[in-house]
């Protein structure tokens, strides 16, 4: 009895907040966007979307990277078997390609990206250490770095996520990889029920969910994707429980956004299949991981470094690359070859533009049309993904 009351109370609190959120929002927040970091980017020069053709461009013969000192700000440890590790390896890889020794890389870990003091202190540290390229690897930094970037015009700041003032933006079209992964699941599954184990309701997670769902749909028109929400970036118990719940709901193939082996292990234990995320997860559960989606930042970082070296780079640059950046690992041995071939074909189609992931007619799961027939979604909307596509079934 009393328990019910309290949980109701909790719901009430949230509901009330919700109302406050939508209800009276015009009073203050309407004009408050004036100083929100998004629109301010328009203030300065027009965002320059760097074309993906630049990928793999080699540095000039006489290019000299000896003076390069690179700073990297990570929100967590660089060997977390997840996001940070992916970024770090991308950066290290790019440096190796360009023959920059690792001594010229300074990595600052566990800089809480909600902590202004820490973030700005970190950036200042790197400036003091003489870094001329500083890379913020977590979305949260975008709130704090522009200030420092403005103060230090000769250093080049690059920041994951939306474009900010004086900062080179970079993102990866992760949806391409996840789409293909979903497509693979769709091809393999004999039911049209799929699952997704999600951490937090953030754009990158939504991207993964939507792309996966569209992928499944590409293979099975009636595919539905059930989402289990952990509401935590990192909680082994919750991840295990999410996977288990999905499996109990009859899911055999699932995608996920996660950093611990909990989900693959749970799937393996229950004979279900999962798409690896962030990095190659096959080692953790060889019999469960079909294929892994990996962030491959190397081309982007390489291009940025070259650009800095030959001065071709502009602080209005925005990298939003897919293709090899949004990579899949090799498929597990138990995946039938015809599936592998179909996925390869789809990959080629995406590259050639024959296949567009967010193409109309596309509805969200509330029934509103996102993209009318015959049109395609613009990058800004894709980056933000403030929606769930119509075959996603999610509490958020």
């Amino acid at each position: 009895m009393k328990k019910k009351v309290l949980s109701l109370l909790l719901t009430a609190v949230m509901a009330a907040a919700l109302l406050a959120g939508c209800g009276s929002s015009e009073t203050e927040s309407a004009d408050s966007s004036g100083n929100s970091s998004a629109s301010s980017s328009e203030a300065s020069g027009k965002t320059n979307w760097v074309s993906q053709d630049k990928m793999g461009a080699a540095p000039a013969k006489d290019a000299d990277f000896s003076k390069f000192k690179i700073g990297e700000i990570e929100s967590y440890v660089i060997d977390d078997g997840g996001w940070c590790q992916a970024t770090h390896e991308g950066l290290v890889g790019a440096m190796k390609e360009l023959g920059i020794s690792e001594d010229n890389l300074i990595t600052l870990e566990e800089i809480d990206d909600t902590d202004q003091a820490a973030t700005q202190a970190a950036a200042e540290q790197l400036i003091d250490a003489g870094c001329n390229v500083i890379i913020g690897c977590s979305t949260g930094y975008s709130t704090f770095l522009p200030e420092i970037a403005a103060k230090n015009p000769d250093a080049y700041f690059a920041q994951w996520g939306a474009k900010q003032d004086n900062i080179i933006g970079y993102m990866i079209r992760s949806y391409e990889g996840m789409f293909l992964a979903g497509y693979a699941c769709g091809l393999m599954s004999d039911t049209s029920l799929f699952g997704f184990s999600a951490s937090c309701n953030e754009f990158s997670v939504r991207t993964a969910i939507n792309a996966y769902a569209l992928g499944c749909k590409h293979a099975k028109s009636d595919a539905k994707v059930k989402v289990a929400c952990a509401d935590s970036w990192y909680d082994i118990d919750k991840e295990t429980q999410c996977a288990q719940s999905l499996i109990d709901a009859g899911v055999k193939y699932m995608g996920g956004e996660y950093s611990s082996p909990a989900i693959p292990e749970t799937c393996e234990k229950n004979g279900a299949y999962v798409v690896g995320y962030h990095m190659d997860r096959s080692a953790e559960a060889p019999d469960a991981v079909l294929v892994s989606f990996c962030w491959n930042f190397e081309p982007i970082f390489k291009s940025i470094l070259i650009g800095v070296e030959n001065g071709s780079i502009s602080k209005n640059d925005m990298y939003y690359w897919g293709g090899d950046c949004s990579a899949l690992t090799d498929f597990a041995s138990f995946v039938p070859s015809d599936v592998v071939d179909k996925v390869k074909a789809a990959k080629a189609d995406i590259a050639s533009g024959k296949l567009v992931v967010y193409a109309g007619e596309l509805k969200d799961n509330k029934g509103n049309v996102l993209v009318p027939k015959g049109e395609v979604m613009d990058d800004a909307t894709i980056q933000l993904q403030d929606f769930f596509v119509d075959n996603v079934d999610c509490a958020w």
Partner: protein
Amino acid sequence: MHKMRFERRPTLPIMIQLINSIIFVLLALAFCGMFMSVLGFNPLSVYKAMMLDIISSKGIKNSIIAGLPLVFCGLGVAFGYRMNMNNIGGDGQYALGAVFCIWFALYGPVMPPALKITVMFLLALAGGAAAALIAAIPKALWNVSETISSMMLNYIILYVLNYLMYGPWKEKGQMIAQTTQIKKKYWLPEIGDTGISTVLIIAVVIAVFLYWFHKKTTKGYEMEVVRRSPRAAIYAGINVKLNIILVLAISGAICGLAGFAQITSILHRAQADMPAGAGYTGIVIAYLAGLNPIAVVIVGLLFGALQFSAVSVQVLGVPSQIATMIQGSIMLFVIIGSFFNRYRLIRIDGSAERGE
């Protein structure tokens, strides 16, 4: 023969307390130094780097920015402990204070800044107090351990914050789980152009007030009596239950101000998991400061310095966790040291200046 024995100190000279703490803090640093050298770092150079970083002008600024939320939590927790209330709920109270505060800042009516900020201040207090009361009332009525209940509330409230930040209050068109920034006119001004917000002054004022409150007011006196001897309190006609509720509420309210500081002076917005353990660190700070509000401000800022200077040692390749570790060991050692605050070594054939 001269036998030695530990005996309670009649009174505790502030100097002894100070010297004790310093000695044991140094011991703690030495202790951590051991681990560092095991992992192949030179402790001295590490500490040197930290020091240099802190005493630099922007180091001081950053320490203060990092320290402010900790100071408020420390003050709040210390206030509770002043009546033996183990308020572990600092995080939750901080969060709820922030929620109330940002709600008014963003969705409340347009007002002249002074008035608006005042209301935000009061709401932050209210939020913190509300969070604390949920634990305080069961404590007062049925003696439910506030330690555990306030800790459970942390989780619950943080989920509320999480919901709001990822859900309805999330800044539209942005990727990060945070609200929009509040309007510039509602920011607290900086002190001169130091980049240090006036909220620091608020913290100091509150600390001084609390110090005076404990020493000079009847309420402060009541708290002291309840803390020292609950039975005597009843005997003196003090309403203990009421005091429990009151003290926990105030304790929570002050923690709530940490949210106010963030919103008006540091982030100027609310974010998911904003407290980030400040409430727990607050306990450490309160204890190390010997529950003395003014000392809390100093210790709090020092902790800020410690946390942010941990970044600087990473340049030397020292793992970031060093800060947490140093905090922990400083605490352990100071606790051990505090034994010598309470006891002194005496010779048994000490002369009798005390009757029985």
